[in-house]
């Protein structure tokens, strides 16, 4: 069909919008431009899918300061000695070479939403038609009295993977015999709900071998946590008597630390510890605040497209966004990235847009060959991303199934990382 004025006016609004969008967007600067900030689970996936599926019709730039991205997922397994650090490091070579993504290793330090430009720390600015933000998390200042980011070498968080993970692992391995490891767990909502408890399992796994009289204390501001029954059963089976979980009901929400003295005070009682893993309360990566798209600690989005509720030219993915029922996980970020990629392509090139659907599965390793999982499917409603259906591993499952679950998680890791980086 040829489009003349009459048929054009006669077409539905939806079609008219998708036909006119590329013309408007393309005006003045050639191919429509998408800038992605953050090359993690959300950002790398979004960049790859937009570049791959638009087949060159969209100019995609990915801004990420680090040359090697260490996945937080499986960083606990590294701590437990099940993975090498190098096996969880990924580079951006394929995104650039195979998919034509412009990878810029720099920090984004400012966003001008009116001019639609992103400023880089190294100078210069990049224009965008659509901006995708997937900067992960930062910590809430003053969340744990006595701790701030300058104390992260004495009391590591290891909640961004890489050198922090290495540091914490080294500290655990050099604990004195019979020493004490303390974790200060974060309040909801936070990145990877089962993450702290998988970490404790991995720490216990190391200590059981090397330091069997050591103790583990968890000070937790929450009264319950993800996969609680499964972890507690597993801790009883594998690490009996080693782990002491102090929940909110027992004062775990009243904690203070002293990084110089290496003490932790829980509900008024001071304890000297040898290693202290402080995981403070979290918020969206700072760049979201700088862009003025946060409401409280997170950036609210519409589940249909992952568009910011404050600026429709910006999509926010992963841990940084407030979307509804999905846990903050790498799986979720990857799933959301595909919905955003489809919406962005639809808006910029008029490609088909299908209803958003999401899913998530989080595996955790409790001890050698003892894996558990929790998962769910979700769909977008006008209000939020809503959970539709779900499942969780059961207590008392046999060893064979637990081993299969662990092996499956290794398959998933290979799958998601090739889905992110090509």
């Amino acid at each position: 069909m040829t489009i003349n004025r009459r048929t054009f006016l006669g077409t539905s609004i939806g079609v008219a919008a998708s036909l006119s969008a590329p013309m408007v967007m393309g005006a003045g600067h050639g191919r429509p431009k998408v800038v992605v900030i953050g090359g993690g689970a959300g950002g790398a996936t979004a960049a790859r899918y937009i570049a791959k599926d638009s087949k060159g019709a969209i100019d995609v730039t990915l801004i990420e300061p680090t040359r090697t991205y260490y996945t937080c997922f499986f960083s606990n397994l590294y701590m437990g000695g099940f993975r090498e650090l190098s096996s969880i490091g990924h580079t951006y070579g394929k995104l650039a070479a195979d998919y034509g993504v412009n990878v810029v290793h720099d920090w984004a330090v400012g966003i001008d939403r009116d001019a639609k430009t992103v400023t880089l720390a190294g100078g210069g600015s990049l224009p965008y038609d659509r901006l995708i933000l997937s900067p992960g998390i930062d910590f809430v200042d003053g969340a744990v009295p006595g701790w701030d980011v300058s104390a992260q070498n004495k009391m590591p968080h290891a909640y961004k993977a890489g050198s922090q993970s290495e540091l914490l692992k080294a500290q655990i391995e050099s604990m004195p015999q019979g020493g004490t490891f303390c974790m200060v767990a974060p309040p909801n909502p936070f990145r990877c709900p089962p993450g702290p408890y998988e970490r404790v399992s991995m720490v216990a796994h190391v200590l059981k071998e090397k330091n069997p009289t050591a103790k583990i204390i968890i000070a937790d501001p929450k009264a319950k946590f993800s996969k609680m029954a499964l972890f507690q059963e597993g801790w009883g089976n594998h690490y009996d008597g080693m782990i002491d979980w102090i929940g909110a009901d027992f004062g775990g929400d009243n904690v203070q630390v002293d990084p110089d003295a290496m003490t932790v005070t829980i509900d008024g009682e001071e304890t000297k510890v040898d290693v202290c893993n402080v995981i403070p309360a979290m918020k969206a990566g700072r760049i979201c605040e700088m862009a003025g798209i946060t409401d409280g600690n997170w950036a609210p989005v519409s589940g249909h497209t992952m568009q910011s509720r404050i600026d429709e030219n910006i999509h926010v993915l992963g841990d940084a966004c407030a979307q509804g029922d999905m846990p903050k996980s790498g799986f979720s970020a990857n799933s959301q990235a595909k919905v955003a990629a489809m919406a962005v392509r639809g808006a910029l090139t008029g490609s088909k847009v299908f209803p958003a659907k999401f899913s998530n599965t989080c595996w955790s390793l409790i001890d050698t060959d003892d894996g558990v999982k929790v998962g769910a499917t979700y769909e977008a409603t006008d209000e939020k991303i809503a959970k539709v259906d779900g499942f969780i591993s059961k207590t008392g499952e046999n060893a064979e199934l637990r081993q299969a679950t662990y092996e499956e998680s290794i398959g998933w890791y290979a799958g998601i990382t090739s889905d992110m980086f090509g």
Partner: protein
Amino acid sequence: MRYLGGVCAAWVALTGAAFAEEGVEQIGDPVRGAELFQVCGECHEVGTDAAHKVGPVLNGIFFRKVAVFEDFEYSDGIRRARRDGMVWDLEHLDAYLNNPKALVSGTNMVFAGMPEAKDRGDVLAYLRQFSDSPQDIPEAAPTAKPVDVSLTPETLAIVGDPDYGEYLSSECTTCHQVDGDYDGIPAIIGWYDEDFVLAMHAYKQKIRPHPVMQMLAGRLSDEEIAALAAYFGALE
């Protein structure tokens, strides 16, 4: 679509409604089943002194865990089903005899399947005599008709929209690698459409075990499964 009739018959069995028009008292005729068992007998033994041959002994098969023998070399596919907790109840036995690989990908049972529901019912009635748990078999025939509205020939003939298949596939590639690598999750590229559709429906109907796949398949429509089969089937 090829083998349409075969696929339909297989599906009827997968829904477990295969015995609808059979006798009211029994699942089948054990005497006729004994004759039909000769085809199985090339590979299987049953009864006192039975030993493993090409296939494992079939004594006590009803409500036996799948792939239970330590001294028999099973395929990886059937061992995976065991780890997922599959048990040989009537529904699973019927699905397996109908089309072994629709239930168990990569099974070593190189047997085309028994397309006739009556034949399967008779063989199973014969095998039941060697089982300790006959209470697992419903004595009365199911009342449901052997029709599943969601898998009519029209449904099976649906040609998937490739764009839609590509979008839907992105949900799968978080776990299944598009280049077909295996690192703990099976490869799903380059399958025949029929096999793929049957496997997905077997998850959807919770006949194949595995909570993730049951959940994901559970919310896919017939069109979506067709689109996915077309998309992944075309990948090398």
